[in-house]
């Protein structure tokens, strides 16, 4: 039997040469008459080690990385198919300090299973949650989700069980389960990793949601910037239909659940739930006024669950292991684990899934290893382009919803972007306004006009025109946008600006013309 070798097919791994490595392994193996079986798994999330190749040996999987195509002949000569030593030999991936402290629940299978195989998914514990859910009945499933303390991982952190309960309580009829896979925040990639590395977990989570609240149709709203995830989802959905986990008779239960992927078209605002629903209906992605809530009047005017990828992908674990097991992780009102993404100027970037409560410092230095440039980390932006900049003096803040909120920051989708001390915070503030201007849906004035005026005011500050007065004007403008905008885009775009003004005011000064 040929040896099994894992070479990630994850977009991030491909972006640094995984395809070339897979091809080189196939070629070199064939040349030597010891062609291994190559599985294209997801990434385990240690991106500085990508492409990370794993070999299945008698004593478990042995990792090598980062591997280039040029390393491949040497790996064969060193007998890597038996897990033998080599300069790139890392040992079992789980033994790396990066993984040793992690608590992978939602991501338990990502990077481990073959994302194209239902059989492999089931072998690794997949569809146990669905089988539990089918034996429990809708109200009990919703109760379990509520008891687990799971909150929306897309950014708003709304209790998932409450959303589901509202949809469940609507009269029987056409209902929908929609997944928000419009992961547009810079510094975030957990949705992408999960969809590429373990898509069945998302499919199972959506199926459980459908069965629980009586919805027979699901949609995944995927951003167009994720072609790899699109392919992975389409393949997995087809495989799930084939295995009868989707369709008219889900897992022999007599219940129907159909699932389809719909592509977005490059609009950040469509990550906002009502705007996403408009877009799913094929319209301009303008936000809706709430109420009515989507849970009551959502897609095509019907009761609709809207949850993020990670939220839905956590559901199978909760059902399989029990609500209490999940709630035992975490701290205060932040229960469970969070897949945190380390990005930007960081030495060891990637995905860390841990219970809520570890500090930013632990993340940035113990996991991240400090900045990639070797210079001091001056600030991090948490929660995407609408998230606040947190200065180094606050790096001992624990990562949970309440603790970050207490320092005026927000956790959002769990992305942390590090900047070293060469960062110009006035320019980052300007970028926040610029981004809002590019992405504003245009429906409300504070966002549409305020963002452009914000850019102009910052330009005047940088040009040395009436500095003090314009800084004050900028602060007032931020207040107006926060108070007056219809949704989170205009309402939160000032957060990075306000935090930059608060912590890095010295950067808001006239520049000599370059």
């Amino acid at each position, binding site marked *: 039997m040929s040896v099994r070798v894992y070479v990630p097919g994850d977009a991030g791994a491909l972006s640094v040469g995984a395809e070339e490595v897979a091809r080189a392994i196939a070629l070199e193996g064939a040349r030597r008459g010891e062609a291994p079986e190559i599985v294209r798994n997801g990434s385990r999330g240690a991106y500085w080690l990508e492409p990370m190749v794993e070999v299945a040996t008698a004593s478990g999987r042995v990792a090598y990385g980062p591997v280039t195509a040029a390393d491949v002949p040497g790996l064969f000569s060193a007998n890597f198919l038996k897990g033998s030593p080599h300069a790139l030999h890392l040992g079992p991936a789980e033994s790396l300090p990066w993984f040793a402290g992690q608590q992978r629940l939602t991501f338990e299978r990502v990077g481990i299973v073959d994302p194209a195989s239902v059989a492999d998914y089931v072998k690794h514990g997949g569809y146990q949650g669905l089988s539990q859910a089918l034996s429990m009945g809708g109200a009990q499933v919703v109760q379990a989700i509520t008891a687990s303390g799971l909150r929306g991982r897309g950014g708003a952190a709304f209790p998932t069980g409450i959303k589901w309960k509202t949809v469940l309580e609507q009269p029987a009829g056409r209902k929908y389960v929609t997944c928000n896979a419009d992961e547009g925040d810079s510094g975030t990639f957990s949705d992408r990793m999960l969809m590429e590395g373990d898509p069945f977990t998302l499919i199972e989570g959506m199926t459980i949601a459908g069965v629980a609240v009586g919805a027979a149709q699901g949609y995944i709203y995927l951003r167009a910037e994720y072609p790899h995830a699109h392919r992975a989802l389409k393949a997995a959905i087809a495989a799930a239909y084939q295995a009868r986990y989707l369709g008219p008779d889900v897992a022999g239960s007599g219940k129907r659940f159909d699932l389809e992927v719909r592509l977005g078209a490059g609009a950040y605002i469509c990550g906002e739930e009502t705007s996403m629903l408009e877009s*799913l209906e094929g319209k301009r992605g303008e936000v809706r006024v709430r109420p009515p809530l989507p849970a009551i009047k959502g897609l095509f005017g019907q009761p609709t669950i809207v949850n993020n990828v990670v939220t839905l992908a956590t559901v199978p674990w909760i059902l399989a292991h029990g609500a209490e097991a999940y709630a035992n992780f975490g701290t205060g009102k932040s229960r469970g684990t969070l897949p945190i993404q380390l990005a930007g100027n960081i030495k060891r970037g990637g995905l860390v899934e841990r219970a809520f409560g570890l500090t930013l410092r632990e993340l940035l230095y113990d996991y991240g290893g400090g900045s990639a440039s070797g210079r001091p980390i001056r600030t991090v932006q948490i929660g995407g382009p609408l998230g606040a900049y947190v200065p180094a003096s606050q790096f001992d803040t624990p990562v949970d919803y309440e603790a970050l909120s207490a320092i005026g920051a927000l956790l959002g989708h769990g992305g942390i972007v590090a900047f070293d001390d060469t960062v110009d915070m006035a320019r980052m503030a300007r970028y926040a306004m610029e981004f809002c201007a590019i992405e504003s849906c245009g429906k409300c004035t504070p966002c549409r006009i305020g963002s452009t005026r914000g850019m102009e005011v910052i330009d005047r500050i940088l040009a040395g025109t009436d500095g003090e007065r314009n800084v004050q004007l900028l602060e007032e403008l931020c207040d107006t946008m926060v108070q007056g905008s219809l949704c989170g885009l205009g309402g939160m775009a000032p957060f990075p600006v306000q935090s930059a003004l608060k912590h890095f005011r010295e950067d808001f000064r006239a520049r000599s013309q370059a």
Partner: protein
Amino acid sequence: MQTLNSGDTETIRRIVAELKGRPGPLLEVLHGVQGALGYVPAAAVPLVAEGLNISRAEVHGVVTFYHYFRHSPPGAHMVSLCQAESCQAQGAEALASHARRRLGVDFNQTTADGRFTLEPIYCLGNCACSPAAMIDGRLHGRVTPERFDALIAEQRK
């Protein structure tokens, strides 16, 4: 407004006919059109509107709302550079300046020989390998100016 050749007209009609029965089909139809023609020509708007029995204004409104839909034919190769925060922290601006110089175009322009269209993009989800770029749907990470030149040279072959 440019008129469409009969082949393109036929293609658009076929796409509309295939998708019109689906719920909320307009975005799907526009993806289909751009997938087939490389962009959404203005002349496609009345065809799509008629096929879906909605107003031209509605179709035009949707086409122009989304950054992804192009209104003119792109170059032979699409080069997208991520300009979001994570990539900025790793030199995206310098890379963008280099790319503009190298290709001799600004963002959202196509080179005179029609080979390359350069565009900014806001997050490719490759933030642990910043700065990121996408060329014809292929994702690239840790893109230095040297690597960018090599990738462009590869396309020129």
